[in-house]
Structure formats: structure tokens, C-alpha cells
């Protein structure tokens, strides 16, 4: 009897706490009509942003404000929608938090900024720019648009991204690229590790570069690449039997290798100043 009473008490208390938390939160929803190739930007200092495709030519923004220390400013002019969190005096990462869920036309250009994140975007075909300090960035199923990502220490994961310029800059966040290809794929990091798993496409320039991080590139045996890997102070390993190629870069056993696989359709540069580099065969 006393046990069931305790259970009921805990349940009631939980409901009260949740109700109190929910009461301090405010949900706002905005709808905008736009045309083809609209431009949508969301600027959020604290909190997640998630962007998904919408049907038709409309932008829907749902914002959950966690306190009255923050408000949402919006600007809609022509084909452009800009929404930003406006921190009021005394706001901190908790009270200034806003959770955004956004739906945009698939061909919209999107700019997302969140210091803390996470930032998520999926199934879009427009250009995307994502910026975050510690934000965890997750992007999947994008094609035909440019993808530019900047983070300080937030990890970046791209999955199924094709036919766009991909530029990722992260100072210390790890970067993972799964099935990412395009005419230009570049990752630049200072201490972050870089992992690539894919076939490097049919014609593209791939440059993965880090100062102290490790680079692991896994690609199938049918890949068609002209590869150069170099680590100034670390080790390099290669699972492929490379055809020698004419290059200005010097191959040095253990610290650099160069050569081609298949028809050498894509150029691949793997550079780590003091980290380890491994080109793996899948």
C-alpha cells in the first residue's frame, strides 16, 4: 500500500514539475509564403535548429522559447525569411535557449547559426551554410547545393551529400564524411580528426587537412583516385597498390605516398602535420 502511495506521489510530483517547466516555455509558430529558391536564415545563440523539407512554397518556423529572457525577431521581405533569437538582459545559455524546427522548400538556400546547437539539416537541394561554436552539426541527404560548415569545437557529420561544393572548417571538432562526393570537397581542421568513407565520386577535388588530427579515408577497391598523402611528423599507411604518378610531391616511406587507383578521376589530398593518415580499402 505504502509502495503504491509512493509511486503515485512521485508521478504527481513529476507532472507538477513538468507542468512548471512547460509553463515557462512559450511555443511560437510562423508561416511565410515564398517563391522558388527562397533564402532562409535562422540565427539562434543558444539551442538546437533542425531544418527539413516542406511541401510547396512555404516556410514554417516553430520556436520554443525557454524563458522570457529571449524573444524571436522575424523579418520577411520578398523571397527572404530571417528569424533570430533576441537575447534580453540577463539571458544565459539556459534562459536564452530557443529550440527551432524549420520547414523550407527543398530548393531554398539556408543559413543556420547556433553557438551551442545542435544543428541538423536534411533532404534539401539548395545551398546551406551552417555555423556553430560548440554545436554538433549533422547534415544528411543533400544534393546539388553547396554545403559550408564552420564550427569551433563542434563535431561535424555529413551523410549522403552529393554534387555540391563541400567546405568544412572546424578548429577542434571531429569531421566525419559518409558517402560524400562532389566537384569540390574540402575539410580544414586544427586538432580535429577527419574520417572519410565513400568512393570519392567520378571527378572531384578532395582535400582533407588537419594539424594534429588523424585522417582515416576508407574507399572501395573500384575507387578512381589520384592520391597524395603526407604527414610531416606522423605516419602514413596505405592499403592500396598505387600506380606511380608524375607529381611534384615527393613520396617518403612512412610519411608520404602518392599514386593512382583506377583511372584517377578524382584528386585526393590527405595532409596531417603531425597526425596519422590511413587510406583503407573497404
Amino acid at each position, binding site marked *: 500500500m505504502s509502495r503504491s502511495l509512493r509511486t503515485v506521489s512521485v508521478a504527481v510530483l513529476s507532472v507538477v514539475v513538468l507542468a512548471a517547466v512547460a509553463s515557462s516555455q512559450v511555443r511560437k509558430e510562423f508561416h511565410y509564403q515564398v517563391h522558388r529558391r527562397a533564402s532562409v536564415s535562422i540565427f539562434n*545563440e543558444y539551442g538546437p535548429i533542425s531544418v527539413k523539407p516542406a511541401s510547396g512554397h512555404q516556410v514554417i518556423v516553430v520556436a520554443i522559447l525557454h524563458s522570457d529572457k529571449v524573444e524571436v525577431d522575424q523579418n520577411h521581405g520578398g523571397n527572404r525569411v530571417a528569424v533570430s533569437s533576441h*537575447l534580453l538582459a540577463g539571458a*544565459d*545559455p539556459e534562459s536564452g535557449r530557443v529550440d527551432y524546427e524549420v520547414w523550407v522548400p527543398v530548393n531554398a538556400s539556408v543559413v543556420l547559426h547556433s*553557438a551551442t546547437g545542435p544543428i541538423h539539416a536534411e533532404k534539401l537541394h539548395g545551398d546551406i551554410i551552417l*555555423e556553430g*561554436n*560548440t554545436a554538433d552539426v549533422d547534415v544528411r541527404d543533400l544534393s546539388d547545393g553547396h554545403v559550408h560548415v*564552420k564550427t*569551433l*569545437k563542434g563535431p561535424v557529420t555529413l551523410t549522403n551529400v552529393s554534387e555540391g561544393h563541400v567546405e568544412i*572548417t572546424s*578548429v*577542434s571538432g571531429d569531421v566525419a564524411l559518409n558517402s560524400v562526393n562532389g566537384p569540390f570537397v574540402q575539410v*580544414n*581542421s*586544427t*586538432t580535429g580528426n577527419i574520417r572519410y568513407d565513400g568512393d570519392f565520386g567520378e571527378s572531384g577535388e578532395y582535400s582533407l*587537412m588537419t*594539424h*594534429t588530427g588523424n585522417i582515416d579515408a576508407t574507399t572501395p577497391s573500384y575507387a578512381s583516385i589520384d592520391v597524395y598523402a*603526407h604527414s*610531416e611528423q606522423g605516419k602514413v599507411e596505405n592499403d592500396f597498390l598505387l600506380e606511380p604518378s608524375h607529381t*611534384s*610531391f615527393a613520396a617518403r616511406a612512412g610519411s608520404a605516398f602518392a599514386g593512382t587507383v583506377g583511372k584517377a578521376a578524382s584528386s585526393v589530398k590527405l*595532409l596531417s*602535420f*603531425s597526425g596519422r593518415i590511413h587510406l583503407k580499402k573497404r
Partner: protein
Amino acid sequence: MSCEEFQRILPELEDTYSLEQEQHLKTCSHCSALVADLNAIAREALLLADIEEPSPRVWNRIEIALRQEGLIRSAQPAAPTLRKARWNPIWLVPVAAIFLVIFGLLLYQRGGVEPQTAHVLHSTPLPSLPEGVSAEQAELLKVVAAQTPSLRASYESEFRAVNAYIRDAELAVRRNPNDQISQQYLTNAYEQRAMVYEMAMDHGLQ
């Protein structure tokens, strides 16, 4: 021949002078002194050819030391009376500059600047900087901390990381200036630092 005419053509003259010019030099102590100074500078300048160029930091130290000693001051507008002088005071600018350069370099070579620099540093002690972070970056960290204290440590470690990247890349370029990869490391390292600056400033300005 007047002083003005002589000084106008002086930059084009080499070691030989016309009769008229020689006559003027004999009679004008001002112009003859000027020519003597320029010749002395030209001789000293030849000796500088083999000397390795000191870093900009050295020049800054020299400038600080000279300012401390009152030997140079901020530029002042020329007094109107100077305009009435017999010779053009514009000559003073390059001559003074060259003198200062030579003077500074000699001080540097003889190690004469260090004690003065030390004096300057002692008289205006600098606040201690976080390790591996420049004064400029430390200032930026203060701005970031004022906005969000919890982010300070994060930015500090990022600054330290990109500074280390730049140091390593610079060293690699210095060891092998023609190496494309080293140059690329350096370019990327600077880009990384620029990004940290940009984000810190964005954050601090909110």
C-alpha cells in the same frame, strides 16, 4: 646659385659637381654640411647590405626606446617660420629617418637597446597573458568572457591550438620555402585563426 636650386638638383648629382655647384658648396656651409651628411649616410648604408634584417619586433623596441629617451616624438605640424628658412626643410624628413634607422641598427647590433627596452618594460609592467595566447587575443577573450563566461576557456584553447598550428607551419615554410604543402599548411592555419577571431568577435559584439 641659390641653396634652393642646389638642393633641388642634389638628388640627381653623383660624385662630380659643376664649377658653379662647387663654388656654392665652398661658400655655403649649410649645403656643404648637408652633402657631407648624405655622403656619410651613403657610406654607412653600404655596410648594412650584409646585415640580416632584424624582425619588426626589434624596430618596435627601438622605436619605444627612442620615444622613451625623447629622441623621437609624434609628428608635429611644421612651424611657419621654417618656411622662411633658406633651404627646404623637407630634406630633414628622409635624412632624419635614415639617421634613426642607422642609429637604431647600431644600437641593436651593439646590444644597446636591450637595457633600455628592459627599462621601458619595467616602468610599464604588462599584465600576465594566458600561456600561448597573444595580447590581442587575450583582449578578445575578455570581451567573450564578458558576454558568456563559460565560453572563455573554449576560445582560449582554440587560440592556443591555432597559434601552435601557425608556429609549426611557419617553421616548415622557413625550412623549405618552396614546398607547396608547407605553404598550404600555413594558409590553412591562418584561415583557422581568422575563423576563431571572427567567431569570437561575433560573439563578443552580441
